[in-house]
């Protein structure tokens, strides 16, 4: 039974994530006054990737990429998706989620750097430094919320926000939401912060040596990551949801917001990206924390 539920969770995350990517590409195309690919383009891409021949340099590359994808799918189980939650006891412990996500990035980093291509390693060193960059504002904002809701479980945070829009965290703690929204932009790797897979500078960064099946797994991991990160922010600030579709809708709104910024903004130089993340979002998060402590 658990296994079925597990597979159900995994597939919802992947399908919704791919759906978001497809609609996102169409949305960006429409911003650029182009017709854009069909919304199920992401599914076609994934099937094509899995049908292609693939290569790997050593067993660590396969193991790493599998671990990356497993890390992200595993984290989704800890996050309450609307009314569904997989674990009753540890329903959405924010500390577990943040640390389980690092398995995803560690796995991908290990797999990709085993390929021995300097482009991918430069991409990984940038990804890790950026991770430190966006973790700070995110953590300060989350700490504020934990103090307020007296527990680090997303489930309790969601129940605290139930009942009408007025007591959503986005209304009660606007600064925290702004900080987390900026951090989300960097988490998803969208345009101002896509220093990790900068196609022109380091030839699509970590994904340089991934082909066919490997690239397919990396694609699915990115889709699941979109689902996960937007889901966390929905639970934290937009008060979760009492039915599934409302949850997906809220996630979609957040994703579209970050895509709008992505469609129109150039790319940061790498040091500036980290410095920017340590100034503006952190300032907002600290203001939020002071407000919570003082009141």
């Amino acid at each position, binding site marked *: 039974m658990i296994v079925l539920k597990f597979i159900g969770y995994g597939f919802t995350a992947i399908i919704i994530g791919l759906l978001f990517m497809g609609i996102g590409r169409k949305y960006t195309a429409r911003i650029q006054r182009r017709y854009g*690919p069909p919304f199920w383009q992401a599914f076609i891409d994934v099937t094509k990737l899995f049908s292609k021949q693939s290569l790997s340099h050593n067993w660590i590359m396969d193991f790493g990429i599998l671990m990356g994808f497993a890390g992200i799918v595993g984290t989704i189980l800890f996050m309450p998706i609307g009314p569904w939650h997989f674990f009753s006891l540890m329903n959405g412990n924010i500390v577990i989620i943040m640390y389980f996500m690092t398995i995803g990035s560690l796995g991908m980093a290990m797999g990709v750097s085993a390929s021995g291509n300097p482009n991918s390693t430069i991409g990984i060193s940038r990804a890790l430094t950026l991770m430190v960059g966006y973790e700070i504002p995110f953590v300060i904002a989350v700490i504020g919320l934990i103090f307020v809701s007296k527990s680090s479980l997303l489930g309790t945070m969601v129940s605290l926000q139930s009942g009408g829009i007025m007591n959503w965290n986005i209304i009660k703690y606007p600064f925290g939401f702004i900080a987390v929204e900026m951090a989300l932009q960097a988490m998803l790797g969208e345009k101002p912060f896509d220093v990790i897979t900068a196609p022109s500078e380091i*030839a699509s960064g970590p994904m340089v*040596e991934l082909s066919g099946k490997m690239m397919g797994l990396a694609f699915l991991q990115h889709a699941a990551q979109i689902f996960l990160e937007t889901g966390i922010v929905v639970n934290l600030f937009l008060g979760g949801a009492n039915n599934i579709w409302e949850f997906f809708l809220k996630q979609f709104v957040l994703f579209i917001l970050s895509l709008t910024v992505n469609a129109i903004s150039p790319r940061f130089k790498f040091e500036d990206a980290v410095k920017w993340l340590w100034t503006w979002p952190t300032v907002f998060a600290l203001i939020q924390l002071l407000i919570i402590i003082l009141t």
Partner: protein
Amino acid sequence: MIQTSTKDLHDSGFEKVLNFFRKRSMWMLHYCTGCGAMELPPTMTTRWDMERFGIGPMATPRQADLLLITGYLSIKSLKRVIRTYEQMQDPKWVIGFGSCTINGGIYYDSYTVINRLSDYIPVDLTIEGCMPRPEAIMTGFQTLMDAIQKGEAVGYKKYKENYEWYKKNQDSVLGRTEPVFTSSEVKK
């Protein structure tokens, strides 16, 4: 104009089903050698928008399925094209832009520019024109997609089948050891 293979290398039944997905999402590696590179941005952006068919630019040969050779190829760049082609993964196609890849174009008599690209790597589709306009490129893509759907675009299998022939041609150009003109011809 499609360079179909002589022997029967068409794709089998199940392969045909996959071909639908391969056709609808071709990732192109854009090896811009000659003047054809200028034609690609218009096809990508608002007016012609090739992304409608799922065709998008990719940075590395490992992820790409479509190799665009957009112009003349000198011997040195031919060596790089061959290495990039061999680094690409299996169902892969090559499109030769413009007359330079068909018969050497205006460089037909140059001592470094090759005359026929299809002697060295299998070309699935060549688009005529001394730099074809975006409309021609779009129809080119359409014909390639139909060929893939029908299972005829099998350049990569042809390359594997008679690899020695291609290798011989490549070595005749890249790995020459004795001079081309014998001393007698030089005198007159």
